[in-house]
């Protein structure tokens, strides 16, 4: 078991003929992911490393029976691409693209509301279920099949945590990047609920950062609904207020969204919060009593 994606997941890559799209589609396929189709309008009939390209997601669905979309479409056209995937009946949309206007995401989120489709991202590294499917841009080789579920707002910081878990021999089940944008699809709570139900996942690592109140909402949820041990790190305790720290969503505004506040809420919910990101792996080990 695992969450969201596995060896049966059939992926269509939107924006597959672009530089990023073709590189990562190839990497995902090499990891063992079933990348069965690509979409670039006007390029139907071409192939990328043996993956057939279609003009529309609808065509790709018809010919290749995909259930998941991985999006590399440039920001100005990305809202359109997400909505196209949803309309074609894709059930899981993983959007890597960074830099989508917030108001575009406002409209997308509203349009997806109440529909049987899940969006992960945008501005995220994607989702990987170790040794089954890598649907994103994370380096596959740092992962090791194991027992820890990882959910994070960041990319390379997630790799850091995964590297520690793998080195310590704990390994991971599934790692989900929910992205660094202020308006996104799947949140911490959704992923925590999935990990809680997944029999293979024995502990959860949650990596948050300054800005918004997603971590506080997660803390409330953990207190009530999560029995598995949760270890958390919140980036940005040294970040000054009012400045965007790279990610569009990483900003302390009006005194809200500080790392200290988030750490406090999580600790109150029984989460083991580490102040040093180098200690994430060790903290999981302790939490599991190993």
């Amino acid at each position: 078991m695992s969450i969201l994606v596995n060896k049966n997941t059939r992926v269509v890559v939107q924006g597959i003929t672009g530089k990023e799209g073709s590189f990562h589609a190839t990497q995902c396929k090499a990891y063992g992911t079933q990348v069965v189709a690509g979409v670039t309008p006007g390029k139907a009939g071409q192939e990328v490393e043996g993956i057939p390209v279609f003009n529309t997601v609808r065509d790709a669905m018809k010919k290749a029976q995909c259930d998941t979309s991985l999006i590399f479409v440039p920001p100005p056209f990305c809202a359109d691409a997400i909505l196209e995937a949803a309309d074609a009946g894709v059930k899981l949309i993983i959007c890597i693209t960074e830099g989508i206007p917030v108001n575009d995401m406002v409209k997308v989120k509203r349009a997806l509301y109440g529909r049987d489709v899940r969006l992960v991202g945008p501005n995220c590294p994607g989702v990987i279920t170790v040794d089954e499917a890598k649907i994103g841009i994370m380096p596959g080789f740092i992962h090791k099949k194991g027992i820890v579920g990882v959910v994070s707002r960041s990319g390379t910081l997630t790799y850091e945590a995964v590297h520690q878990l793998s080195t310590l021999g704990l390994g991971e089940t599934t790692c989900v990047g929910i992205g660094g944008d202020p308006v996104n699809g799947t949140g911490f709570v959704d992923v925590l609920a999935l990990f809680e139900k997944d029999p293979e996942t024995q502990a959860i690592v949650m990596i948050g950062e300054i800005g918004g109140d997603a971590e506080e909402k997660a803390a409330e949820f953990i207190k009530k609904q999560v029995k598995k041990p949760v270890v958390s790190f919140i980036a940005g305790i040294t970040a000054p207020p009012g400045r965007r720290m790279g990610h569009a969503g990483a900003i302390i505004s009006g005194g809200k969204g500080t790392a200290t506040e988030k750490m406090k809420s999580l600790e109150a919910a029984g989460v083991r919060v580490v102040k040093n990101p180098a200690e994430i792996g060790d903290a999981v080990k302790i939490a599991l009593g190993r």
Partner: protein
Amino acid sequence: MNVHEFQAKQLFGQFGVPVPRGKEITSPEAGAAWAAELNTPVFVVKAQIHAGGRGKAGGVKITKDKAAVPGLVKELIGKTLITHQTGPKGREVRRLLVEEGAAIAKELYVSILVDRDSGWPVFIASTEGGMEIEVVAAHTPEKIIREAIDPAVGFQAYNGRNIAFALGLPAMEAAVVTPFIQMLGNLYRLFMDKNAAMVEINPLVVTSDKKLIALDGKVSFDDNALFRHADVQQMRDLHEEDPLEIEAGENNLNYIKLDGNIGCMVNGAGLAMATMDVIKLAGSEPANFLDVGGGATKETVAAGFRILLKDPNVKGIFINIFGGIVRCERIAQGVIDAAKEVKINVPLVVRLQGTNADEGRKLLAESSLKLEVANDLWEAAQKIVKLTGKAA
């Protein structure tokens, strides 16, 4: 991206939000000419900087004497204002807004931004106009009114009624209710059409002759949507930004200057923040946030070095790269090449992990560069803090 008050008010005017008659002024002569044209009982001269708290810092002058306007312009232009938002160095005033005063009967607060949790735009309103809204929210949260707008249909009249009645406006000033609701609709259009990140009017005043006027205005824009708005891009004032941050932007680097002395260069925003945090945990303070991005190259590393070394506070540099798609031996080569171009006269610790980290570390060790190599994040942070401790 932030803009000046006079620019925010120009946008308000375009979208049918009432503002005082006013003009951007940069010289006493222009001030005199505009005062003559304005010909109003009360003149307001306001310093235009991208920071709040201007009034308390002496950046806003009021006079009833038309002839006094050029003198006030002369006094304010070139003055450095220090407010709670400018930092101790303050900000030089380069332009002013000269506008007509208003006879204030009542001050309100209105703003609009996106609520991150729901993903819906939300109006925030309060009867406590003219105060800092954070203070109002902290001390009297019951005086903060929130009204979410369904982005599928946009602003509706009932949204406006909800806000107006919650403010007690019909009981207070029945005459302004209809124009108030219209104005809220116009603000929503401005917010969505121009891809604003926030629109704020504080205060929105009701005058003694029962007119609504946006007496102050603040608009910030979503940087990711600027490509759609050439008019907004033209409003950018580079004088209001840190020169190093401008240079970083030109090199596609994400840099924010801070006050510590350890410069850091990292790939990825989350890891960059975590690196700053680790520097502090190890006993020092970061000099900056610098994300070289996922596709770091020799060129970006060199540009990063140049920017870090231009900050006179930097006493040491910590490079932290977790190679994913980026290969560590390329970064290592980038560091070696950049060090030849840029003279690095402070201690340097390089931590490489991930893809081809061993090859990268080997390249660095074999180079003639004076640097320390580290495998582990915590080990690296302690090293650079120890080295800069000696240097200081």
